[in-house]
């Protein structure tokens, strides 16, 4: 699922498309098209992580927009080869999420429905929405670091060494956090097995 973006993370991709770092340099040189391509690549990932970590759509949008704004402002000072652009962005997103959680008093799930995927039947969409809601509720019950690690590993599908770089911890610590997080998620979701129909694969 991430193969296209995985290839584009470095200076150039296998398919010849410019990598994130090359695009960031072009953006700093005034290339407007580079901004659009980077937004298409990195914006959804920033938003997805913020959404799953915060569980609130409006806050996730604010965090993703602010993270991308920091990327635009930082572009002229970017030192090539220091890190992946996506790693830098994920780190900013997680820090901004922590700031949001410090500011708010209560955790709540937003009532705004998930965007509809018209290619699926109404029943399939309802079941998927129920699964996402259940997963989000279970994620929100996890300790903060476990939730971050599980989201990066199993929803963003990042490799453990990159997660370790983003969270500034060891690979072993990432493995421990994700293992404990998955056990807790399994327990929380087990009770809703019939309702969510997750044995149909």
């Amino acid at each position, binding site marked *: 699922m991430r193969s296209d973006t995985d290839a584009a993370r470095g200076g150039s991709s296998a398919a010849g498309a410019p990598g994130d770092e090359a695009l960031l340099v072009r953006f700093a040189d005034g290339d407007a098209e580079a901004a659009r391509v980077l937004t298409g690549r990195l914006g959804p990932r920033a938003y997805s992580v913020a959404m799953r970590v915060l569980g609130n759509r409006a806050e996730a949008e604010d965090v993703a927009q602010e993270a991308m704004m920091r990327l635009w402002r930082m572009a002229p000072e970017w030192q090539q080869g220091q890190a992946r652009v996506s790693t830098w962005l994920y780190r900013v997103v997680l820090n901004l999420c922590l700031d949001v959680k410090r500011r708010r008093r209560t955790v709540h799930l937003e009532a705004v429905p998930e965007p509809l995927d018209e290619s699926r039947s109404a029943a399939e969409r309802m079941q998927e929405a129920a699964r*996402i809601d259940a997963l989000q509720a279970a994620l929100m019950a996890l300790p903060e670091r476990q939730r971050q690690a599980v989201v990066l590993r199993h*929803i963003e599908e990042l490799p453990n060494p990159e997660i370790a770089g983003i969270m500034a911890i060891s690979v072993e610590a990432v493995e421990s956090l994700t293992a404990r997080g998955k056990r807790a998620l399994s327990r929380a979701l087990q009770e809703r097995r019939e309702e969510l129909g997750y044995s149909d694969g």
Partner: protein
Amino acid sequence: MAETETELDVFFAAARHEPMPQALADRMVTDALEVQAGRAAAGAIVPRGPGIWAQLRGALGGWAGMGGLATACATGLWIGLAPPAFLPDPVQLVYGSQEDGEPFGGFDLAGLLVEEN
């Protein structure tokens, strides 16, 4: 454990379908362009002019002009090396005949030496 992994994967897969709202993408691009405009206004972005080869190509009439110039050069070189039969030999024109080419052909060097003595 394997069953639990599969069950969880169903949830994770559902969560990966989260699309980013188009309005958010538009705001991100707008921010980016504003940052670029601000830097350009502050003189931090210098528009890059065409390079020396691009300028030369433009002066010669673009790629079409460059192609015509290259063809003319190649044709001239070929005519110089292997002139057609109806044209005079350019080497003959420059240097003349073998006889004409002798610098002291019509001069008696021995007579000159005698006069000096």
